[in-house]
């Protein structure tokens, strides 16, 4: 018996234009469908008996009937395998669900909302599942128990968060592992991982956001009697990769674009990159990141730029030098706040705000100041420059 464990295809997902550009956002959306089509071919070519899809098969609200029909037509191409799918937070079986909009192929079995079981008697397999009917499930559910029928291969299918305590059915991986199933197939987390013995996330066949670096694909499980082989099949068309590019105050938008482009070429231009800009930006002249991104997209490089550059000055040095004047007072007012630390996310947000405020204020203050000295540089350096 051979089955595939897939999840989080997110067919129909709309990619944000601001991060992908009009053209590539559209292309990427199409690529998800292409990958599914390839998956069907893979199943046909590799004598797969059934495919388990652990939720988020569709981005239910982003698909038109025509597209649903296309997807259905792809499923119809399956020669042997059937798909057993549960719904997840992106395709819950609500009143307006996409699953209701067309008649689905007989090869596509969508588990009804809630917990249940389906038996694949031909393969002596019983699948226990929980299928979603709402967009969020903040409360954990009682972990279903395997069927009492003996001599069956017991599979549990869930769309759940076994890593963090989120609003998307948080469950304890260990408990899942101990629930008595031969294989626990999970969906929701896009990165393939084995969170506990027998408990697997297949990850999404295609990475879906800039954070999702690394290989993507699905699990292929072969069961022969007592022997079992679980393997990960990398399948994505593209990977999201991380790049960091050092920039300096002398860089222009054009030179940054060129530097990123050459960095991407060194890696592999086929993939999608998150480029982190590091270093200092020149005083009062921050680069237009969107322009750089547009330029790169125009050159057919797909990347999103994360600007982590900082203003070129050294706050501490500035503070020291300006003790007792307005600038010093200004910096001091922020430093004082910071010392009165609070906790959690709020602090982060506030810190970000304050940091920005500090930089804005300093930028304005320093640009007004008669250029008598270069803050953050010591006197010696000044002399040398002179």
């Amino acid at each position: 018996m051979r089955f595939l464990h897939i999840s989080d295809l997110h067919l129909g997902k709309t990619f944000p234009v601001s991060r992908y550009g009009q053209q590539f956002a559209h292309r990427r959306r199409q690529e998800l469908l292409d990958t599914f089509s390839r998956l069907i071919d893979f199943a046909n070519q590799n004598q797969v008996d059934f495919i388990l899809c652990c939720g988020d098969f569709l981005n239910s609200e982003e698909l038109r009937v025509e597209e649903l029909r296309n997807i259905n037509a792809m499923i119809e191409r399956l020669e042997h395998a059937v798909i057993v799918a549960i719904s997840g937070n992106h395709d819950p079986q609500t009143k307006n669900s996409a699953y209701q909009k067309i008649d689905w192929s007989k090869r596509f079995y969508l588990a009804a909302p809630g917990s249940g079981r389906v038996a694949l008697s031909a393969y002596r397999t019983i699948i226990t599942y929980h299928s979603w009917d709402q967009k969020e499930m903040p409360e954990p559910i009682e972990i279903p128990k395997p069927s009492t029928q003996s001599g069956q291969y017991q599979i549990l299918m869930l769309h759940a968060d076994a890593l963090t305590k989120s609003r998307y059915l948080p469950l304890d991986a260990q408990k899942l592992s101990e629930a008595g199933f031969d294989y626990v197939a999970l969906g929701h987390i896009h990165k393939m991982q084995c969170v506990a013995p027998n408990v697997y996330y297949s990850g999404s066949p295609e990475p879906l956001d800039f954070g999702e670096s690394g290989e993507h694909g699905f699990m292929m499980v072969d069961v022969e009697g007592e022997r079992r082989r679980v393997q990960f099949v990398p399948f994505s068309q593209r990977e999201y990769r991380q790049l960091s590019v050092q920039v300096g105050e002398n860089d222009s938008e054009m030179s940054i674009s060129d530097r990123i482009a050459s960095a991407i070429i060194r890696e592999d231009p086929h993939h999608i990159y998150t480029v982190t800009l590091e270093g200092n930006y020149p005083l009062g002249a921050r680069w237009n990141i969107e322009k750089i991104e547009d330029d790169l997209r125009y050159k057919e490089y797909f990347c999103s730029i994360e600007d982590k550059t900082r203003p070129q000055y050294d706050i501490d040095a500035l503070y020291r030098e300006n003790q007792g004047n307005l600038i010093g007072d200004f910096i001091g007012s922020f430093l004082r706040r910071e010392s009165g630390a609070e906790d959690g996310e709020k602090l982060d947000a506030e810190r970000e705000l304050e940091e920005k405020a500090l930089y804005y204020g300093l930028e304005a203050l320093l640009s007004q100041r008669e250029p008598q000295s270069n803050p953050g540089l010591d006197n010696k350096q000044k002399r040398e420059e002179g």
Partner: protein
Amino acid sequence: MQNLEIIRMQLIGFGKFRDRTIELSPGLNLLEGPNEAGKSTIQAFLTGMFYGFFQPGAKRRSYTPHRDKYQPWDGGSYRGVLVCRNEERTWRIERTFDKDSESVKVYDDLTGDDLTLDFAYNTVTRQVQVGEKLLGLSKTAFNNTANIAQMTCASVAQESGFSAEVSDKLLSMMKTADSSLSLSAVIHQLDSKAEQIGSPKKSKTPYGIESLREKELVEELEEAEKNEAEYQNLCEQGKSLSGEIQQLEKEKSLLEAQIRESAAKELGGRYLKAQNLRVRIERIEKEQEKYRIYQDVDPEIIDQAQKRLGAKAQITRTLEKYRRALEELNHRIQELNNLYRTLEVSGADEETLSQFDLMFERHKNLEQLRDELYQLQIKKTNVAFHRSKLSQMDGQKLEEDMQEYRRLEQMKQEKQPEKSNTAGIFVLVFGLVFVLAGVAAALFGGEMVPAAAAYGAILIGIVASATGLILLLTLRKASGKGRKGESLERICQMQQDILEDYQLSHEVDPLACLEEMLGKVQINNYKIKQFEEQENLLLEEILSKNQRVNQLDAEISAYLGRLTAKAAPLNEEDNVQESSETETVSEEQEMVWAEDSQPEKNVQSADEVRLKSLRESVNQAKRIRTDLQRLHLQQQQIMQEEENCKNQIEQINTSIQQAVDSCRAAGAQSADDLEKCRQGKRRLDEVSVELKLQKELLTETLGGYSFEELEQNVRSQKAGESDISPDRRETREKLAALNEKLSELGKQAAELEGVRRGREESQRPTGQVQAELDEVRSRCKKYQLELDAIALAKEKLLSLSGQLHRDFAPQLNARVSKAIERITNSRYSRAVIDQTLGVRLEDKKSGKLVDVSSLSSGSADLIYLVMRLELLDLLCGENRVPVIFDDSFTQLDDERTARLLSYLLEDKQRQILLFSCHSREREMLSLAQIPCHVISLNEQ
């Protein structure tokens, strides 16, 4: 406590000054000079020496206009030295303003140590900052406080914008002595940054655009969500419809099966009918097979061929007509040819014939010539005749005879005279007369006297002459015998003989006669000569004419020869006959000519006759030729027509042959078979139509089955006779209703699909809208964060400055209040300076706060001046810096100036530089006994 005072200014090269040194003393220095003396130049020199001429706040080294303004007038080195002193040491500032060698150096004036490196270095100006350190003031602060130029104090207050700027600079200075920080500019910068981001309300700013988009998206999402249910409903309707349709399709196929079964019931009757039909069809098919050969016949072609056949007949008839006409023509031509051939001139060619008239004319000429010739010959004959007549008498002999006679006479006389013979002479004379008369008649009266008569007269004359002569001779003989008896006799005889010779007798005086005769003979001889000449002339003429005649004759005869030559004789007999005829004619003519004594004339006549006779023939020949030509032309035309007809017939034959060929499959061999083919084809068509009809009937009768199936059905039906018989009509109706419903549902489904598609096109799926909304919202959030950060920075700065003001205001207020109370002679006891540097004064009497702007401009000036000085003190703290007044007291009256000066000089340690163009200040100072160092700028 640091007290800086300027000791010496050395203007080595600055503006109008060259190597000018101005020594200053502590305390009050009054620099006097009229306009243009260089007061402002010295003031600028001071600023320049301390700070240089750099644009404050610039990011790159750039200069104020002063730098160019105070270039040395003589073009020499642009530099100066300023020596000043504080408690620490005496500073010597050396500054070169030249662009190439711009530099500043600071030395200890006493020790000469280079102190430059003790000063802060400015990376923009690339110089050490001298003024900042020595004065403890930035350039701006110095210019705003210590350096009080003409009229500036009042204008500070009047220009509120500037005052605000000054105020925040001053505020900043209060703590930092760094006036370069303009709080309002900082705030302004932050504001403009915020403006760049915009706000949700400003629809054209980035934030505004995003926020507008957010609103739109929210609306779209709401709309989409609202319609989602409806849309879902549409989808479900579609689904249920298609389910219903499937169900109906099933029912339909069931019903159709039923109908087919029930239809089998009628099969028996239909089977029989079908059988009959099949028999008929077979028969028709056989017939059709028979006529199959005519399948490819095209009646159209046959029609055309038959039409052509008709045309061919007509053309053949025409052709026959032509042939007959041609025959006729040929016949006529033959006739004419024959006729022509009968003509003597048949052998002549056209040219010869055409020459005929000319020849004829020549012939006439010839005839005339001949006549003339003939006349000439006659004339010649006559002449010859006359001559011959005349020549019979020999004059010589006559003379000798006469001599002889005379001698004889003489001898006779001598013997006996003898008797004369007069009768003989008479007759002779008579005869001669006649002869003469005849000759005359023949010669001259040719036409008047008949030839016969002339000839008769001549004849008579001759006869008479002859008789006379004989008489004479006989007489003479008689006389001669009788001459002298022998002698005489003989003499007489001899005389007689002589007379006889001349036919004279003795009767007439023979001598006289002889003499006469001799005379006559002599005349005759002359005449003969003349005749001979005449004859010769005539002969010549005759010869020439004869030649001409002969020539013409030859021409004519040649022509005739040509004319009558036989060319290609067709009929031998005719020719022979003709020639023999001609021969006869010529023989006849010859005979005639033979009879005639004048053969030449006869020959000529024969030619004439011949020409005349030919003339007719020639004319006829010409006519015939013309006719023949015409006929030949006709013949040619007809032949042409005939040829055309033949060609047409040929064409028609070809096309008919084609038609026949096309029908060859139908057995057509010739044109005669075409009609048969056409009829065959017609029959085939009829049969085919009938066959089709019968087959249709059969198909209808069979009702969807093949005959064999029908047969089988019938048989099987017969086997299971008890087949259920549902009401067929009812079932059919049901089916029809079902179909109707199906098509109705199909239509509905299509409509639904259309509506759904329309909906999809007009509205994106909610998820897509939501995704974009999230994106826009995150951008909005980002913008908001930026705005918040800016606001926070602004807030902090403002609160800090407010705090500064709060820290600082009471001090300033107290100091300014004190000074003002003094200067206004306690009219105003208290001054309140707000954050924008607006000053209000408390009227001591009324206790009301009065705004400075409501005071006189002189008072306002004074108050601002005081405020500046107090600010300066505050800014410099313990330090004292020189204060420069440039005609600053012009607005003040003497009393106030005096008060101000005493206020200024109260602080003994402050150095004051007072520039003035009036003597007023000096007078006032001396009046108030205030010591001062007066420097006249007019010196040197």
